[in-house]
C-alpha cells in the first residue's frame, strides 16, 4: 500500500502532515541515539579491511573471552529453561503464603543495578563468604551472576502462557490415562514452547552482553574468567578502539541473530494462535 494512501486512511486534514512529522521525529531520535552509533562501530571495525577485522576478532585473548561468553550464555539459557519453567509453574499452579511477594521479587534483577548484583553475590559467595562457598574469581561465579540477571526472562515469558492455559486439554489427557509427567511433556510443553524459546533467547542475549555483575564477581582473569564485554572494556581503556570495535561487531552480530530468531518465533506463534 502506498504510504500516502494509508496516511489518508486516517482522514482529517491535520493528520496527513502530522503523521509524517511523527514518523520523522521517531526516525531522527532513533538515528541519533541508536542507529548512527551502532553503524559507527561496524564501520570502525571494517576500516582496516577484512584481514584487520579477522585478526582483531580472533586474537587469542579475544577468542578466549568470546568462547567463554558464548559457552556461559548457553549454559545459563539452558539452566533458565529448566528452572524458569519450574518457578513459573510454581507461581501459577501452586498456592502458598507469601506467593505474592515472591512473584514481585522475580522482577528484582530488572530493578537492581547490575553492579549491585555483582557486589551482593560476591558478598555471599565470595572469599569472605558466610556460607563457606568461594565462587569469586571462578567460572561458576560468572554463571551465578548471569543466572541472577537472566532470572526474570524465562519466568515472565512463560507465566502468562501458563496463566491463560485452559484446563480442558490436561483434563482430557488425564481421562485418557496420562500421568502428570506425560501430561506436562505432551500438553503443557508444546503450548509454552514458543514462550520458552523467546525467554531463553532473551536470556541468552542478555548473558552474552552482561557486564556490570560479572566485572565484579569474576575478577576478569584473562583466559579464565574474562568475558567478552569485559575484554572490550579493557580494549577501550587501552585506546585500542579498532580491536574493541571488531570484538563488538561479533557481539552485535550475535544480538542481531538472536533478535531475528525471536522475531521468527513470534511470527510462528501468531500463526499457530488461530
Amino acid at each position, binding site marked *: 500500500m502506498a504510504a500516502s494512501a494509508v496516511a489518508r486512511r486516517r482522514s482529517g486534514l491535520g*493528520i496527513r502532515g502530522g503523521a509524517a512529522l511523527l514518523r520523522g521525529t521517531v526516525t531522527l531520535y*532513533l538515528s541519533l*541515539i541508536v542507529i548512527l552509533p551502532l553503524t559507527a562501530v561496524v564501520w570502525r571495525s571494517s576500516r582496516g579491511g577484512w584481514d584487520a577485522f579477522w585478526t582483531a576478532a580472533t586474537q587469542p585473548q579475544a577468542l578466549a573471552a568470546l568462547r567463554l561468553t558464548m559457552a556461559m550464555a548457553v549454559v545459563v539459557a539452558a539452566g533458565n529453561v529448566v528452572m524458569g519453567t519450574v518457578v513459573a509453574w510454581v507461581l501459577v499452579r501452586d498456592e502458598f503464603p507469601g506467593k505474592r511477594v515472591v512473584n514481585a521479587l522475580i522482577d528484582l534483577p530488572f530493578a*537492581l543495578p547490575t553492579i549491585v548484583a555483582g*557486589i551482593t553475590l560476591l558478598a555471599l559467595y565470595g572469599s569472605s563468604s558466610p556460607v563457606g562457598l568461594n565462587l569469586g574469581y571462578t567460572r561458576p561465579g560468572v554463571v551465578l551472576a548471569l543466572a541472577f540477571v537472566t532470572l526474570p526472562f524465562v519466568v515472565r515469558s512463560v507465566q502468562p502462557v501458563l496463566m491463560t492455559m485452559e484446563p480442558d486439554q490436561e483434563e482430557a489427557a488425564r481421562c485418557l490415562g496420562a500421568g502428570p509427567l506425560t501430561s506436562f511433556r505432551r500438553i503443557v510443553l508444546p503450548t509454552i514452547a514458543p514462550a520458552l524459546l523467546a525467554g531463553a533467547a532473551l536470556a541468552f542475549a542478555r548473558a552474552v552482553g552482561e557486564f556490570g555483575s560479572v566485572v*565484579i564477581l569474576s575478577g576478569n582473569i584473562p583466559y579464565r574468567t574474562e568475558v567478552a564485554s569485559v575484554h572490550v572494556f579493557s580494549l577501550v581503556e587501552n585506546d585500542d578502539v579498532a580491536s*574493541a570495535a571488531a570484538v563488538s561487531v561479533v557481539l552485535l552480530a550475535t544480538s542481531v541473530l538472536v533478535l531475528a530468531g525471536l522475531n521468527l518465533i513470534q511470527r510462528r506463534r501468531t500463526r499457530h494462535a488461530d
Partner: protein
Amino acid sequence: MPTRGRGRWPLRVLALGYLALILLVPVGAVLWRAFGDGVAPVWQAVTTPDALHAFWLSLLIAAIAVPLNTLFGVVCAVVLVRHRFWGRRLLDAVIDLPFAISPVVIGLALILVYGQAGWLGSWLAQRGIQVIFSLPGMVLATVFVSLPYVVREVAPVLREVGTDQEEAAWTLGASPLRAFLQVTLPAIRWGVAYGVVLTTARALGEFGAVTIVSGRLAGQTETLTLYVENRFEAFDLTGAYAASLTLAVLALLVLLAMTRIQRKEGR
C-alpha cells in the same frame, strides 16, 4: 489446574530454593554486610560529598532521560500501532536493539560518534559542546539503554484501546491533538506509568555504558553505580555496600511501584 497431592512439595522446594539461592539470600547478605559495623558508618559513607554528588547525578540523569524516552515512547507507540508504512518491521526491530546489545558496546558506539574525534563529536567540539566525559554523553548512554521500555509497554495498550474513542471525540468537535490528550492518553495511562517505572529503574541502574562514556571523574562524572565500583576497587567495602544499599532501596521502591501499577491495570 493447581498441582495436587504430594507432587506439590518437591517442585515448590526446588523453585523456592533456587530463588532463595540466587535472589533472596544475596540481597539479605548486602543488608547484613552493610550494617556489619553498625548504622553510623553506613550513614557516614552515604553522606560523603562524593557519594552525595553521585546520588544527585544519578537522579539528574534519570530526570532528563526518562521524560525524553517517555515522550519518544508514546509517539513511537502511536506510529507503530496506528500507521502502516514501509519499514515498520524495521522500526520494530531497531527498538528492541537496546535490549540485546552489551552496554560496553553501546559505550564504544557513542564514543565513536560523539567523542572528540567522532563523526559528530568533532563538529560539536568546534562549537564548544563536549559530549563524552561529560553530562550529555552520560544522558545519551542512559537514553540508549532505557529506550524501549515505554514503547513496549504502551504499544499493546494503545492497540487494545483502538481508535473509536478518539474518532468519537473528533465528531464532537475536538481537534486531533485534543482528542489524543484528553481521551486516548488517559486510557493508556497505566501502560505509560509502568513504562516510566521500568525506564527509571533501568536509567538509575545503568553501569556499563556510562562507565565508558563518563571518564569516571569522582565528584564530577560519577553516578551512584560508578561510585559503588569505585569504592569497591578502593577496598572501601563499607562505602560500596552503603551505596549499594541506597540503590537496593531504590530498586525495592521500583518493585513496589511496579506491583501497584500491575494491580491497577488488572494484570
